[in-house]
């Protein structure tokens, strides 16, 4: 039981007194802010906390009247800080009055004289008058920022409210990753709080759980600010403070920030030149201080644009392309009617229009591009962190940070790359002893390469580890029933390696290995496929593993194969086309009700587009058709069509509401001659068709690779 001794009671009084004094000082500041029409959410929250503590203490120590007053006051302050009631003169008056009453109550308690009942009653009556909030109830919609779920989960109601308010006010969100010495943490935090205050509000402080060492701690500070990255980096960034903007989901801020881009390129160059000199991954790859040297100049010349606006512009370009087509036809007609000079003029106009339109398209595309360095920086930190966790020294060599790719793709790349790197460290790179045994340098190397190849960006993650153990992969695949022992015997090396992209078959190659940490490569593959990319794996036992990803440079325009099936035109993005072969119906076999054909010794499931979409034929099936082989990783499907029209760059537009939920279509596209074509979603179709087919094919050999 609690000692009811004087000491405890005395402590209570002195703390209560202190709280009331703090509250009083707080109110003065709050009043000042209120009168000068400034808002200071921090002050309201502090007042709330003070009263909240006072309430808890009072009830604990039997000071019931004080507890009761504090309780009612707390409700008002809670409504205030959560934005449910506005701060007005009436509320401010009540708060001041409450401080007086608290003081009277404390005096009476101390001297054991009767409580100032009248004053208390009067105050409670005024509090009641303020009444229940009429303001909006707390928003509950999704927070459209790429915030760590873990971070969102630990926000208190108040913190969440502040987050929403800041978002509503159009502030940008930042994550400040800081690392502090435990001994000096208080001072260090005060300092960063003080400097952060000038630029915005720190919403919460979240320990990341990565202690690094027993003497330091890493925290993520969620901050809202009007300032931009270069400014915050300049003002808050330091060796132990990394500022990172939290992007909006779907409508991310984009490159227009040439300063940032330039700075990344410079950093990338520094990295590349310095790479061979970097002793190990422990070294800070990009220090916050270096960042701002380049970016100081041109900050004011940049704008941030929601990427959806660019999509809109791109749609307009698509529509203009149709005008261009019509213009060409008109000029043809005019020439046909013998008006030569008018026809020539129109022809010239048409050509100019065409050229300018192409420039405009290229210009819009260029704005969407951001350097891959953005993701690479993050990965460098991950490598450092993981290598420390697993006690493997790793050198990360980055090339091609300046390679540019669609902003939306960059956003989606970070997870798959992270998993691949995690795999490379966990399962690829051996521990130092083992490396020494086989004559490798003790420090493992992971290379992250990016380069552009035509309309594609190639990304490679390469390690000099032990390579993938094919036997183990095969064993696992057989055990999981992904392949039968019979088909296993016939698989080529490359086909075996491709098995790691099947669910459940991992790159893990021995039981003592750290497993279960990363997501399977199947998830990585799916993510890449969603971006219209393909993924390949190469591995040499004892030498290393290389995983190569080919991505389209942009999601706004895709190269597609146009094809026709019973008078309908369909487009299939080239990224999912592996080949097109002549087809005649006689080669089709039937396995358990599913159509398949042979293709160079492998079995290819096929699907007739007209049947699939229930298209009516006005004419008979042509004698000679084509099978377009669509592939999604190791899975392939032959789509039977009547005619191949050719390749064309297309802008994919979303389908209208009524068609949005139809599986199998990625969207629609205008074909330039006022016709509309449906864009096939290869992934969805393959999934749909193969779901039934694969089991039927077990026994027959499925064509991987």
């Amino acid at each position, binding site marked *: 039981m609690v000692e009811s001794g004087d000491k405890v009671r005395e402590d209570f009084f002195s703390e209560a007194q202190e709280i009331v004094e703090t509250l009083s000082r707080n109110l003065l500041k709050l009043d000042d802010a209120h009168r000068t029409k400034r808002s200071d959410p921090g002050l309201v929250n502090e007042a709330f*906390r003070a009263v909240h*503590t006072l309430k808890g203490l009072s009830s604990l120590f039997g000071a019931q009247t004080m507890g009761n007053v504090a309780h009612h006051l707390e409700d008002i302050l809670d409504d205030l800080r959560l934005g449910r009631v506005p701060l007005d003169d009436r509320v401010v008056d009540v708060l001041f009055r409450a401080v007086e009453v608290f003081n009277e109550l404390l005096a009476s308690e101390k001297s054991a004289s009767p409580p100032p009942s009248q004053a208390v009653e009067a105050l409670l009556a005024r509090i009641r008058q303020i009444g229940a909030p009429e303001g909006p109830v707390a928003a509950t919609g999704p927070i459209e920022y790429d915030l760590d779920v873990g971070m969102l989960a630990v926000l*208190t109601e108040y913190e969440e409210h502040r987050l929403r308010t800041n978002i509503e006010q159009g502030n940008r969100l930042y994550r400040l990753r800081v690392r502090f010495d435990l001994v000096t943490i208080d001072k260090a935090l005060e300092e960063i709080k003080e400097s952060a205050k000038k630029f915005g509000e720190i919403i919460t*402080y979240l320990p990341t759980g990565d202690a690094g060492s027993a003497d330091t701690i890493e925290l993520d500070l969620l901050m809202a600010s009007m300032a931009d990255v270069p400014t915050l980096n300049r003002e808050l960034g330091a060796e132990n403070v990394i500022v990172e903007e939290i992007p909006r989901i779907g409508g991310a801020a984009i490159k227009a920030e040439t300063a940032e881009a330039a700075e990344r390129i410079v950093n990338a160059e520094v990295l590349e030149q310095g790479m061979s000199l970097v002793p190990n991954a422990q070294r800070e790859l990009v220090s916050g201080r270096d960042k701002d040297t380049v970016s100081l100049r041109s900050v004011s010349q940049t704008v941030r644009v929601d990427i959806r606006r660019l999509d809109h512009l791109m749609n307009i370009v698509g529509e203009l392309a149709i005008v261009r087509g019509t213009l060409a036809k008109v000029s043809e007609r005019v020439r046909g009617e013998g008006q030569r000079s008018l026809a020539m003029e129109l022809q010239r106009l048409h050509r100019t229009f065409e050229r300018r339109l192409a420039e405009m398209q290229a210009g819009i595309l260029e704005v969407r591009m951001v350097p891959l360095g953005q993701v690479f920086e993050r990965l460098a930190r991950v490598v450092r962190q993981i290598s420390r966790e697993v006690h493997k020294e790793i050198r990360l060599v980055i090339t091609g940070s300046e390679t540019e790719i669609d902003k939306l793709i960059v956003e989606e790349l970070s997870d798959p790359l992270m998993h691949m790197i995690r795999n490379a460290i966990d399962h690829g790179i051996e521990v130092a002893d083992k490396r020494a045994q086989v004559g490798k340098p003790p420090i493992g190397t992971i290379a992250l390469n990016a380069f552009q190849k035509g309309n594609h960006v190639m990304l490679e993650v390469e390690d000099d580890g032990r390579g993938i153990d094919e036997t183990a992969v095969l064993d696992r695949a057989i055990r999981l029933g992904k392949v039968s022992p019979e088909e296993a015997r016939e698989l080529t090396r490359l086909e075996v390696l491709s098995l790691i992209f099947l669910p459940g078959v991992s790159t893990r190659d021995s039981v003592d290995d750290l497993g279960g940490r990363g997501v399977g490569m199947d998830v990585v593959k799916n993510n890449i496929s969603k971006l219209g990319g393909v993924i390949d794996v190469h591995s040499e036992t004892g030498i290393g593993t290389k995983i190569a990803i080919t991505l389209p440079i942009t999601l706004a325009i895709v190269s597609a194969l146009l094809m026709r099936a019973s008078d309908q035109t369909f487009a299939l993005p080239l990224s999912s086309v592996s080949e097109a072969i002549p087809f005649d119906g006689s080669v089709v076999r039937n396995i358990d009700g599913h159509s398949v054909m042979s293709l160079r010794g492998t079995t290819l499931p096929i699907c007739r587009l007209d049947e699939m979409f229930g298209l009516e034929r006005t004419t008979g099936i042509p004698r000679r058709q084509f099978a377009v082989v669509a592939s999604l990783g190791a899975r392939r499907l032959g789509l039977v069509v009547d005619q191949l029209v050719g390749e064309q760059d297309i802008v994919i537009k979303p389908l209208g509401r009524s068609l949005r939920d139809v599986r199998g279509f990625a969207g629609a596209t205008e074909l330039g001659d006022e016709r509309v074509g449906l864009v096939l979603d290869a992934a969805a179709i393959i999934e749909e068709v193969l779901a039934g087919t694969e089991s039927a094919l077990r026994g027959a050999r499925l064509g991987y690779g």
Partner: protein
Amino acid sequence: MLRILLVEDSPSMRRFARTALEDLKKQLGELEIVEATSGFDALRWLPRGRYDLVVTDINMPDVNGLELVRFIRQSPVHRSVPIVLISTQSSERDRERGLGLGANAYLVKPFAAEDLQRTAVQQIGNASS
């Protein structure tokens, strides 16, 4: 010896809880109560040893109790230590979040010393059984 980490930013409340917990010596034998005066302070104390129970207030500035729960549940060393949250009547949402993040029990202010003692004994017992 049992070690309890008590995280509470109000000195009186801390003293109250400490006194209540110290009373458990009769029942549980030797115990050490480590007091942290804020969420940050707790972060400082956590790496310095193992604990058999953590009692923490939710409503603290900067690093709040929920963040502490998450941190503890992610820590390889402290992952399974029982956590008792101290919350107020009004913060039902925060309390629920805390339990969702892996706290084991909560006490609503004001609570009697016996409530804290009972919960503490229960949680320490659960963890060791």
